[in-house]
């Protein structure tokens, strides 16, 4: 049980916009995708493939990292065709086959259902909120006890 939560995984994306501009953005890596969050809600996501990562040595204030290409209109930008085609979530769908995209999306959705099913187990004693409140109560009781003892024996 990790009360502070697992450290976030982040990757740098070389993001191309439709207005002929680009940006190196650090995005969170979640569910095998680079995601853009609005609060706790997923706003946009791009599928992440390790074979699409390209080393970048850094430039000015842009940190060195292995980067992934992406743009605003599509979830996959594989310019060198490194990702094999297929319907598995770790492959990219074949655009020439009509049902490949449907099967690929349904496999990803099935994977998500399994993730959410595993996350459904909530335990009162593994909740961060519970332990923070218990910690505050313990500190307050200790401080009150110290003061009480001092007053009693003063």
């Amino acid at each position: 049980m990790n009360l502070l939560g697992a450290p976030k995984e982040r990757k740098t994306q070389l993001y191309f916009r439709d207005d002929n501009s680009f940006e190196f953005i650090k995005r969170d890596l979640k569910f095998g995708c680079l995601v853009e969050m609005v609060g706790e809600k997923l706003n946009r996501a791009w599928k992440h493939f390790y074979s699409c990562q390209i080393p970048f040595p850094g430039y000015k204030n842009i940190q060195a990292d292995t980067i992934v290409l992406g743009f605003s209109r599509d979830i996959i930008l594989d310019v060198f065709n490194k990702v094999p085609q297929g319907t598995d979530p770790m492959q990219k769908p074949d655009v020439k086959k009509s049902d490949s995209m449907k099967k690929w999306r349904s496999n990803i959705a099935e994977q998500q259902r399994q993730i959410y099913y595993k996350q459904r187990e909530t335990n009162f004693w593994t909740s961060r909120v519970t332990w923070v409140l218990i910690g505050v109560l313990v500190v307050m009781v200790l401080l009150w006890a110290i003061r009480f003892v001092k007053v009693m024996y003063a």
Partner: protein
Amino acid sequence: MTEKKGFKFEKSTVKLIASAVLLALGFILCWLWFGVVHGNAFGMLAIIVLAGGGFLTIRYFKQWREFGGVEVPIDVGQDKSKKTPQYNSLSIYPHKVVFEDVVKPEGQKWRCHNDGKNYFVNIWDVDDNKLKPFVLPDQQYRDPERFAQQTLELPAHRRLYRKRQKLLEQLAPGFMVLAIIVFWIVIITT
């Protein structure tokens, strides 16, 4: 490439140490409040410093765990005191992405949001073995917003799988907050 050796204080480490010092100061103030100085204003200051120090320590610890202590290798002979030269192009190769000067670049310039300058963007054509202007493809797979909201989020399925908590588990945080408030009143009034 050689690795730069030696201990170096990263920004995240300095922030973590500063917040830990603030937390320790909060404990000292609380101890002083209970032992020496008896006053509500001082007590409130002690609690605020303690709570603020605790919050900042946890926050900077998470940041430090993510980014702290990683040394980025630098090239031999690279002089960090010199300003990075301004290049005219961003080139995308299968094995690297670099900013570099390209002789007679083609295509239009793209604006880089990170430094506000314009660059030609080129991509290595593996068939012709030369750099060509980078052109974005049309959409082939899925819009990123629809993919996120319809395929990844699955709001209806998440509601189905959410486990219902027992009544005691639901009320317990409220009871604990109430206990904290009652203790707070007892400490202030006694």
